[in-house]
């Protein structure tokens, strides 16, 4: 049975040509760049095939990436007066989302209402917002930006990731307003609230009939700028980089205002036809070469071609301490190659972005793939039989790449195990486990 791929296309699919055999072919027109977040995937082939749907989901991912990284107004809405790539260093849409640290507060305290500021860790209080570097105006919107990067271990705690400057990569998880509202309304931000709720979580999905955006989670990874990293090659922001003593034994609290560059970007979007969510992942093009292939770039963010003794895809030895001035970089390779079709789609979107600005930083980001349910309504498999079976971002699942079930990274297979603190199903998010 085919999954129900219903809904209204909110983006132009006419620009991607379909060949006589109904396989996507090289586009002759550029994809449309729009700030509209797509609400559902539209099948471009009838009947759809695994390949055609993968392509359609990948288009959905790119359109989502474009919309979420669109320059934003002060209230987080897209600034339709400019196009992505035109307003360098201005905040983008997803930066108005709420960072997990600001939702799950000590003692289970209620989070600040959407759009209001949350308190910074006390150790960051010495940062004077009046003396920030140029280009950090968005940092003054403290509650609306992911202004504190306090996670130095990968989201699944498989280990930290050390860049070619010997610095710890940093991570942040955010939710959009719809997802935040569900958590806030149902008091799922605290253990006591979850106990009173005592049911499976069911976050709102996007709805094409009401034209409502549903729940979206963003997971990001960052490296400090400078050294081997040229800020002109990254989407950058200024962030308070916080060494959190709660993360690892021996870590001393520290808070430093630092320019950071985006290297990894997950989007999880719950739609009506994909209750297992649609899982998209993007990376900086310089992150890592593909295993088994000759490195093609002169330098990588997480790989050193001259290091023949470096163990590949292994976390650094303990003790892990993000406060260390320098740590031996990790050696990362991509285990599962990006498919030719995704590469072709990346090229098409890069062309469209380059048409806006030849030196757009967004030319340096590529789609790895999209995981989606092939049988969303399966009665025997609550993961909906994902395709592809495995999907990993080299910066977010560096050490669990591969093809082994229950061991290698699969967004849906892993998140299907997520529960609240009471053991109820938490609707594919581990965030609710952070409640105190």
């Amino acid at each position, binding site marked *: *049975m*085919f*999954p129900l791929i219903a809904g209204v296309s909110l983006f132009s699919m006419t620009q991607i040509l379909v060949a006589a055999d109904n396989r996507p072919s090289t586009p002759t027109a550029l994809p449309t760049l729009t700030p509209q977040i797509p609400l559902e995937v539209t099948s471009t082939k009838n*009947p*759809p*095939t*695994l390949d055609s*749907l993968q392509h359609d989901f990948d288009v959905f991912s790119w359109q989502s990436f474009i919309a979420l990284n669109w320059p934003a107004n002060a209230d987080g809405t897209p600034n339709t007066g400019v196009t992505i790539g035109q307003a360098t260093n201005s905040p983008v849409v997803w930066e108005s989302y709420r960072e997990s640290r600001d939702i799950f507060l000590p003692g289970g305290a209620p989070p600040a209402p959407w759009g209001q500021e949350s308190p910074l860790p006390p150790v960051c209080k010495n940062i004077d917002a009046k003396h920030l570097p140029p280009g950090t105006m968005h940092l003054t919107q403290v509650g609306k930006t992911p202004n504190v990067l306090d996670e130095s271990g990968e989201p699944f705690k498989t280990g930290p990731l050390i860049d070619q400057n010997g610095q710890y990569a940093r991570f942040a998880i955010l939710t959009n307003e719809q997802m935040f509202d569900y958590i806030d309304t149902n008091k799922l931000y605290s253990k006591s609230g979850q106990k009173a709720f005592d049911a499976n979580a069911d976050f709102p999905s996007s709805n094409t009939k009401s034209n409502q955006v549903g729940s979206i989670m963003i997971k990001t990874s960052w490296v400090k700028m400078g050294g081997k990293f040229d800020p002109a090659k990254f989407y950058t922001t200024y962030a308070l980089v916080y060494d959190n003593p709660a993360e690892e034994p021996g870590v001393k609290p520290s808070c430093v205002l630092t320019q950071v560059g985006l290297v990894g970007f997950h989007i999880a979007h719950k739609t009506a036809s994909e209750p297992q969510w649609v899982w998209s992942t993007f990376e900086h093009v310089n992150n890592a070469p593909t295993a088994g292939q000759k490195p093609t770039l002169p330098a990588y963010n997480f790989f050193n071609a001259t290091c023949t003794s470096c163990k590949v895809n292994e976390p650094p030895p303990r003790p892990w301490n993000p406060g260390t001035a320098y740590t031996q970089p990790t050696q990362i390779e991509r285990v599962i190659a990006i498919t030719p079709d995704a590469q072709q789609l990346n090229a098409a979107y890069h062309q469209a972005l380059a048409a806006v600005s030849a030196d757009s930083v967004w030319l340096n980001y590529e789609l790895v793939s999209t995981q989606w349910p*092939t*049988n969303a309504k399966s*009665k*025997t*498999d*609550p*993961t909906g*039989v*994902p*395709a*592809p*079976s495995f999907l990993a971002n080299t910066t977010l699942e560096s050490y669990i790449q591969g093809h*082994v*079930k*229950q061991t290698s990274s699969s967004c849906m*297979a892993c998140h*299907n*195990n997520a*529960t609240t603190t009471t*053991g*109820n*199903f938490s609707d594919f998010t581990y965030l609710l486990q952070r409640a105190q």
Partner: protein
Amino acid sequence: MSNDMDNFVGLSVVLTGFSREVLAPDLDPVDIKSEYLPVFTANVTKESGDPSLVADIFQKYAMLQSQTLTPQQIGEAMLDPANGEAFVLACRKLIFMWYAGAWPTIVPASATAQASTVSDLISAKAYTASLVWQVMQSHPMGDSNYRYGYWNKPPVPLSDYTGQ
């Protein structure tokens, strides 16, 4: 005109009792059939010493399938001893492969031991995709797509697993 894969899947549906939607869904990211067909072809050819046996089996199935017969009738016709020992054994091994994710080898009786069957797991994917777990309405050891606390509820009906 059906090809080997069509006949292999059709024959597998008949002999296993599972639906085509379960064994070879239209959207099939697991695609275990593409792993099983070469194993079946190579092993049957090697063990029988008959390079045309697999083609004969598929041809017989296609002929039966073109007639107005029920799956039960087709299955019985495929397992009819009149087809020959190697033919029937190949069909039985096909059933074993789908259910166990492994290829069976029959060890003849000796002076000191009874005949027995040993099997070689085809792959890690075959282990998790084997139908025995579906029949058990359960999951392989070390591999579950069920959610935390699933054991607190009865499984869905067997028909949801077999698709029949």
